């Protein structure tokens, strides 16, 4: 009886109201997969939290960088792919630089972001995911990224447009866009690269589509 109480108490301290997650028979499958694919020695982490302390955006993350590494060891894949962490990460490489055990934390989080992008899980930070997606769309169309085309394409995404309309920032952003145009910082026309075909082919191959 006493055991149960203390057990519940410990649980409450960790995540109030949530059931304790069991590792079950997941084994090392997820850990091995990430270590192999990202080329990172996740097992070397001893939770010193130096990555989280170095991270400039850890307070905007639901799973902190050192926790993300631990989650991988435990095989908690869905929690990681559902997290805001993987999208909020700026790839500023502070965590990687200061890890005493040379765990490439930024590369690991980047790999999780790649996995999330190829999964059916809706990104927790949708606007950030949509921005990356839009960037690549513009890149595929012209081989280079023109900021004017990028911003247009981004704001015209239905989700983004509605969000900006709802929180009332649309007008402010439009005015900023006009000022940028007036100052000559946004160019409506910039040369395209002849690489478009090659880039599109490479892109399809990278997605696992077999070309002709």
């Amino acid at each position: 009886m006493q055991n149960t109480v203390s057990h519940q108490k410990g649980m409450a301290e960790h995540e109030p109201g949530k059931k304790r997650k069991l590792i079950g028979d997941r084994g090392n499958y997820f850990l091995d997969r990430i270590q192999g694919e990202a080329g990172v020695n996740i097992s070397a982490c001893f939770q010193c939290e130096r990555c989280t302390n170095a991270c400039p955006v850890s307070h905007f993350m639901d799973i902190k960088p050192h926790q993300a590494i631990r989650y991988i060891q435990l095989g908690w894949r869905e929690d990681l792919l559902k997290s805001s962490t993987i999208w909020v990460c700026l790839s500023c490489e502070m965590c990687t630089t200061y890890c005493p055990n040379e765990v490439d934390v930024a590369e690991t989080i980047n790999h999780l972001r790649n996995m999330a992008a190829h999964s059916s899980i809706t990104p927790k930070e949708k606007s950030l995911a949509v921005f990356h997606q839009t960037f690549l769309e513009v890149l595929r169309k012209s081989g280079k990224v023109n900021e004017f085309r990028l911003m247009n394409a981004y704001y015209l995404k239905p989700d983004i447009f509605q969000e900006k309309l709802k929180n009332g920032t649309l007008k402010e952003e439009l005015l900023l866009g006009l000022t940028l145009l007036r100052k000559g910082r946004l160019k409506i026309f910039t040369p395209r690269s002849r690489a478009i075909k090659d880039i599109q082919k490479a892109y399809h191959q990278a997605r696992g589509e077999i070309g002709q």
Partner: protein
Amino acid sequence: MKISFYPGCSLEGMAKDYFHAIDAVFEAMDIDLVEIEDWSCCGATAAHSLSEAMSVILPARNLAAAEKMGLDIVAPCANCFNRLRYSQQIIKKKVFDIPWQVTGDIQVHDMTRFLAESSMIKLIKERVLKPLNGLKVVCYYGCQMVRPPKITGYTDYENPLTLDRIAAAAGAEVIDWSYKSTCCGASIGIARKEIGESLTMRILQKAQQAGAEAIVVSCPLCQSNLDIIQKDRPDRRTPIFYFAELLRLSFIAHGDPKWFKMHFTDPVPLLKAKGLL
């Protein structure tokens, strides 16, 4: 001297002024900057976020073009530099198929380190016609130019000095500070404004606390972030210069205020007050 030049997408748009300044500086220094034939985007953060393969393949196309020219690359944009170096390392590991003929053997320099070599600093000092005396600046490097050290090759990643050396050679008074390579938020401000602002504002405040009248940068995105955030703060404004703009100004007897018209935070009053324009 001849070197290939990978400008990157920003230098055709948001940072066109940086491009012009670089052009003028390298011409004055008699270094032949050869733009890479039909270069394409390096993929930036979006490519490595969504497709690791593309983040290696996209820069590889430009590496291949430079290899064909037989010239080392100099890149003015911190992220382009980082992605090119990253791509080189992965190419050598042979984990992705690259559609182009590329070995990854050429040198990729970031422009500030290229110009901070002692021979180049000597050349800069010879070209300086009007030293920027009395202009108090801090130099801001951002992330991608210095981190991670195993990609960028910077050994002094905690206290990088390339921009400091260049600004000092141009005659500016360079102030030491602790936020040289703290992240400015990069493109996160476009989708999550409050995160971007919290990071950029801190850098700006720390620069002002250090006593800087201006910030010197080399990254187009750092420049836009630090510059545009000041648009609604008319009280305390700190102009954000590209290092090439300062060099260009010091190489010539009479600078042109038109060079700075793309800035949100107008540096002309400050430069006039210092007798530099």
